[in-house]
């Protein structure tokens, strides 16, 4: 069971004077329980890729496969497949349409023929998973603070019970507790078999939490690998827009000086190595 994008190419306004190539042969693979982080500079094509994964955009060439089935744009099969992939947009307001948070979160489950109290349980569980208190359920989603809107957007996609969850900058606007809770929640639902694709500018979180990373530059896939491999690659190859987090840069300096520590290390490991003077040479 997997979500695969194979050599996706896409241009906005194709065939017009305003044509803008946004993706040039980008591939992604995520299996059940996996967590892939997509990173890259502003305008590198991350959101365009996210919208392909949930079949909102149709590639000019290349294909999207969900659980082994190729998504044929516009077909009834594609609608079926699309339900398996939930997308949380970069700006949460993009996806809001309802008058109340309850209605917003309950939209997908309300089509499942649930009893009233089952639906309410479903809404409350999704709200709680995103760190929303029940009082907010009566509010208009457009009349909330930025971080509260982000939580509603996440809750309404969780409530769809997708098999694949695509999140576009989900931590932007969340407070520290929100970021911690989101990470914990994603790991919990991952343990239940759901797969996560996260677009993020937060390299620290991507390096710490994902099991694979994809680096984009100007619509091209320039690196794919585990967080350790990606950090080592980025330490040696400057990529537009990306700067490694300070502690990773510090660990890089230690490694260059012969210390035998992983590129993604915690402070205790660094201090331990430094005080032992544990240089290889």
């Amino acid at each position, binding site marked *: 069971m997997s979500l695969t994008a194979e050599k996706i190419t896409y241009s906005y306004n194709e065939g017009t004077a305003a044509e803008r190539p946004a993706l040039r042969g980008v591939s992604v693979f995520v299996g059940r329980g996996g967590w892939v982080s997509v990173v890259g500079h*502003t305008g590198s094509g991350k959101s365009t890729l996210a919208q392909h994964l949930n079949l909102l955009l149709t590639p000019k060439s290349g294909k999207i496969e969900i659980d082994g089935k190729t998504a044929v744009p516009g077909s009834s099969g594609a609608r079926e497949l699309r339900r398996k992939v939930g997308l949380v947009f970069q700006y949460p307001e993009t996806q809001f349409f309802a008058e109340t948070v309850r209605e917003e979160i309950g939209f997908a489950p309300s089509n499942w023929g649930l009893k009233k109290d089952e639906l309410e349980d479903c809404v409350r569980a999704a709200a709680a998973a995103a760190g929303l208190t029940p009082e907010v359920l009566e509010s208009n989603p457009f009349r*909330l603070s*930025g971080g509260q809107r982000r939580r509603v957007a996440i809750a309404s996609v969780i409530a769809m019970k997708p098999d694949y969850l695509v999140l576009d900058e989900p931590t932007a606007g969340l*407070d*520290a507790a929100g970021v911690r809770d989101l990470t914990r929640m994603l790991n919990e639902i991952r343990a239940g078999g759901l797969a996560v694709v996260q677009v993020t500018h937060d*390299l620290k979180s991507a390096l710490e939490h994902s099991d694979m990373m994809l680096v984009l530059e100007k619509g091209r896939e320039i690196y794919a690998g585990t967080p350790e491999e990606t950090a080592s690659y980025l330490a040696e190859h400057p990529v537009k*827009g990306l700067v490694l987090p300070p*502690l990773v840069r510090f660990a890089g300096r230690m490694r260059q000086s012969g210390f035998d520590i992983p590129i993604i290390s915690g402070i205790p490991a*660094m201090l331990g190595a430094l005080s032992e003077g544990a240089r290889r040479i």
Partner: protein
Amino acid sequence: MGKDPIISIRGAVYSYKGAPSPALCGADLEVLPGEWVALLGANGSGKSTLAKICNALLEPTQGDCFSLSMDCRDPACVPLIRQGAALVFQNPDDQIVASIVEEDVAFGPENLGLTSGEIRRRVDRALELTGLSEHRRRGSHSLSGGQKQRLALAGALALEPKVLILDEATSMLDPEGRAALLECLRELNASGMTLIQITHIMEDIARAGRIAVMQSGRIVWDGLPADFWRGEYLRFGFDEPGELALYRELISRKMIPEGTRPIAEDMAEALCL
């Protein structure tokens, strides 16, 4: 000589229509000219509401609010305050008004009644500072998320305000873009611009001279960064940036000399790495 505050808010109360509880319940904030204040707080604590009060976009239901020595309640002052204490919105879509990038940036200066030469100078500079020059002729709504955020910032910079209020204005920028923006803010602040910076990213407030913390519609802590990082941050549930945590450990073990800056590269140099 004591300076008069450029922003002075006392006992501000604000309730949104139909909201179950007030968003601000007695917030006090005083900012001196040339200061760089970081405004922190949990989701829903009232930061954006307070920012809109400073910028005279919202009028407090109780309390006093003066921006640039003008009363925010005086309708004659409101337009002057909005230009002189410019606000970069949390969501750029709330701010983008024109369909072409450069026209959007020109919108503010045009309303100031400047000469066309001056408008052009300001637009060019704002686009340059935000790295949007190559996109100037593009449709505002066809930009990527981070490009839109830069556009919102450019629009505020083109007003050449005395006070710049940034409501999470770096949340969608890539790491390099964030660093460049912070450097740009440092220069603007050095040349006298007062900054109020709202953010959840603790790495971004390294240059602020003061930190104010909001909780449930009030400012509950206000002081120097050194005091904040000495322990207060824990009380409010913030995360310490990794660089600072490493710095503290290295200093307490006397592995690096006092006076080393808490920057990864400087600490590595000090350790001869």
